[in-house]
Each structure stands twice: as structure tokens, then as C-alpha cells.
């Protein structure tokens, strides 16, 4: 009994000394080293797995293929990032509603998801440099002879209920009729079948639709200011942000990003990633 007590006392003493030593070390350590150790970059490398949040119900950015595996433009970019880091990739399905909470609670390391940057969101999370640029344009039938919004006088625009997509053309002073459908699929079908002349949506989404159906094409309009969509990360992790920005810089410089865009959307990117103001 006595022996046990004594050894416990000694152990306690060592523990206290050890803790003090560790505390002292941490206090005296340079802050740069501290930041890099607590960075998501470091955690991912240690864990050996990169967790990428992506909207996997948003083809062709992210979707489930026939075997139930994630596939798409975002997924290809994520695979490349994991390869560069030398870690395994885990795709986490998110929605546009839960992607910010997913970052804030560190459920994922980074969110792709065609994330549109705005100052409201930037109060909650941080954004990388852009990886894809979007505006809004019109999906039309090739033989319709419509090349831009100016050709739309007295024609019909199919939109999705609740969206204000037709208003941009109206505000240009062009008289148009508007049909409001329940889903974007129904609106696209209406254009295909000639029940409407054009459908207004995100340029990348429309490029993909035109790739799926060669009888359709996308006009060269940019009906809303360009959106430079990016990856989102948790706030306050400059090391991880720098790493992702360098990754994006490299895949843009090497042309890999452009190549992957072409693979999924069937065309070269319409708008350059570096803004011209």
C-alpha cells in the first residue's frame, strides 16, 4: 500500500512538472510554427484524408454516377487536389443551405459547390481565388436565329417559378412573354419542344444542357454581372487558404482547369478567370 501511495505521489509530481514544461514550451514557441501546426493543411496531411464538401446533386459540378460514386467537374478538381497532397479523398455531400455550417463546425476541410462569393457570406467564411466564372445567358434552339437578348422582342422566355430571370431582359426594354414552370427541367423541355423560345439560367449549367442536346445552344449574353465562384474554407486559416490558392494558380497555369471544364461542359470557359475591370 505504502509503495503504491509513494509511486502515485511521484507520478503526480512528474505529471505536474511535465505539464509546466509543455505549457512553457507552447508559450515560448514562435507563432508562425503554431499557426502551421493548427492549420487544416497540417491536419489533413496528418489524417491522410481530405474531406471535400460538394453539392452532389448538381450535375455536372457534382453528381452520383451509375455505380453510386461521386463524379463531375468539382469531383475531378478534388481528386487532383488530393493527389497533389498525397492523401485520400472523401467527398461529403452538402447542399447550398448547409455548406457554411459544415465549414464552421469543421465537418469538411473545404467546400467547392460552385460557391458564389459575396460579402455577406465572407462575414462567415473565407473564399479562395475563383475557379469558375458564371453569368446568366439564354438557352435557345440552334435554328431559332436568336443570338442575344436583343433578338427576343415579343418572344417567350421560360423560367422557373419564383426566379426573377426574365426581369433582366424586360429591364433592357425588350417586350417578352414569360412562362413560369415548376422546375428547370420542365423549362428546358419547353424550349426543346418549341413551346418557349429561350430559357435564362447560369451560363455553366446551360452549357452543360447544350452539350447534352446538340439541337440547343447558349447565347453569348452576360445578363448579370460576372460571378467569380470559388472554394470556401473556415475563417482564420491563412495557411490552408494560401495552399488552396496556390493549387488553383497551378491548375490554371498548367491549363488543367480549362481542360477539365471542357471535358464536363463541352466548351472552353466563356469568361476569363482574371477579371478585366
Amino acid at each position: 500500500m505504502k509503495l503504491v501511495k509513494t509511486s502515485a505521489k511521484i507520478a503526480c509530481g512528474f505529471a505536474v512538472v511535465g505539464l509546466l514544461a509543455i505549457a512553457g514550451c507552447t508559450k515560448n514557441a514562435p507563432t508562425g510554427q503554431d499557426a502551421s501546426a493548427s492549420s487544416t493543411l497540417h491536419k489533413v496531411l496528418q489524417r491522410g484524408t481530405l474531406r471535400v464538401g460538394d453539392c452532389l446533386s448538381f450535375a455536372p459540378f457534382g453528381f452520383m454516377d451509375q455505380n453510386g460514386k461521386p463524379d463531375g467537374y468539382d469531383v475531378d478538381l478534388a481528386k487532383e487536389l488530393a493527389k497533389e497532397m498525397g492523401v485520400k479523398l472523401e467527398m461529403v455531400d452538402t447542399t447550398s443551405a448547409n455548406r457554411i455550417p459544415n465549414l464552421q463546425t469543421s465537418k469538411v476541410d473545404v467546400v467547392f459547390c460552385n460557391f458564389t462569393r459575396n460579402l455577406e457570406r465572407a462575414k462567415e467564411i473565407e473564399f479562395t481565388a475563383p475557379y469558375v466564372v458564371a453569368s446568366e445567358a439564354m438557352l435557345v434552339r440552334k435554328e431559332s436565329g436568336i443570338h442575344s437578348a436583343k433578338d427576343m422582342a415579343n418572344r417567350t422566355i421560360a423560367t422557373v417559378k419564383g426566379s426573377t430571370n426574365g426581369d433582366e431582359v424586360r429591364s433592357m426594354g425588350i417586350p417578352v412573354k414569360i412562362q413560369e414552370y415548376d422546375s428547370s427541367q420542365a423549362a428546358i423541355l419547353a424550349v426543346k419542344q418549341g413551346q418557349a423560345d429561350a430559357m435564362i439560367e447560369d451560363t455553366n449549367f446551360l452549357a452543360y444542357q447544350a452539350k447534352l442536346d446538340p439541337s440547343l445552344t447558349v447565347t453569348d449574353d452576360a445578363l448579370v454581372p460576372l460571378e467569380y465562384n470559388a472554394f470556401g474554407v473556415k475563417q482564420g486559416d491563412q495557411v490552408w487558404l494560401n495552399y488552396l490558392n496556390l493549387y488553383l494558380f497551378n491548375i490554371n497555369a498548367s491549363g488543367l482547369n480549362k481542360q477539365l471544364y471542357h471535358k464536363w461542359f463541352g466548351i472552353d470557359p466563356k469568361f476569363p478567370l482574371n477579371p478585366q475591370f
Partner: protein
Amino acid sequence: MSYQWLTLWGYLPDFIRAGWLTLQITLLAFCLALALGLVAALASAARTRVLRLAASCYIELIRNTPILLQIFIVFFGLPSLGLHMSAYTAGVIAFGVNVGAYLAEVFRAGIQSVPKGQREAASILGLERSQVFVSVVLPQAARAVYPAIVNNLIQLLLGTSLLSGIALPELTGTATVINSRTLLYLQTFTFTLISYLILSNALSWIAEQIGKRSFHPPLVLKQRSRNPLARRSSRA
């Protein structure tokens, strides 16, 4: 709370326009349905086998498939065959054809309900075959099936809500658009329900008046008495 209802009040002109469109489609489709139903009922009782076969094909095909798909075929499918029509025309045709099949069965039942003796008596009195049908069989059949026809009319009125799926701004379509702008679910859909209630009750009332005036003795659709006991005592 009340300002939300006031917001909806501002959309009253939209609701009136949508209600008028709903009523137009209902009445036009119903006229088409009456004509198609009568022709199909006659064809299904015809002596020629081809006519009978054509009628039963039409009735069975339409009555055993969902109306929403029939609307989609008319609006989204027929353009592939080069047949373009507006959502309005597509709605009238789809519902006319659909309700016509149901009315055909109603008419057939009505015609069969006229006792055989009536036809025999009429032909013995020297009436032609066509005269027997128009002057003896049809009026009695019409009286028997009138409530069922009115019922189909109300069903049709409510069914036009499906046309919101092909972007027709009728009551339900307009309501979903207003709802997506205001996000006042309860208020928007309550307003819409009330609009349907007004329309269906108005149609029922008109149908009742027509029933009273065009049949002899007057056809009363609904027995209205304040007190069930009162009716019993009056009968006694």
C-alpha cells in the same frame, strides 16, 4: 398578422384574372367533353363493330391513364409531331378529351336506364328511330344523369389546377408564383382555396337553376331544408 393578409389583398387583380382564365378553360373543355362524350356513348351503343371498338378504345385509354401525363403529352409531346399549341389550347383539349371519356360512360348508363318499354311504345306510335332517340330516350336519360354531369363539371374545374404544370397562369399556377414571391404560404393558398370555393359554388348554383328550369317537373339537385324533422312532418 393582418399586414400579411393585406399583402395578399394587393394581388386580388391577379387572382381575378386567374379565376377568369380557370373558368374559361373549364367551360370550353366541358363543351368539348359533352360533345365527345355524347358521340362516344352513341358509338359504344352502335351496331357497327368498328365504332363500338373505337369508342371503347378511347374510353379505356383515357380513363386508365393519369390526366397529368395526358396534359404533358399534348403540350410537350405533340410538338415532336409538328403540332404546336399554346398552354391554353393544350389545356382545353387535354381536359375536353379526358372528361369526355368519363361523360361517355355517364351517358351510356343514362341511355340504358330508360326502360325498353318506352322505346317500344314510341316506335309503335309511329316515331322514326332518330325521333325515338331525340324525343323520348334522350330527355329521360338526361334527367337521370344530370347530377352526375354537374359533378363532372366541378371535378373538371378543380382538375384545371394541374395546368400549372405547363406554365398556364390559372388559379393554382398564379398562386404558386405569388407564393414564391411573398413566401406567405398560408395566406396565398387560403386565398386560392376561397377562389375555388366561390367558382365551384357559383357553377353548382347555375347548374341547379338550369336543372330547375329545363326539366319538367323541375329537377332539384339538393334537398334543402333547415330541419330534417320538418321534412318528415310535412311528408306525414
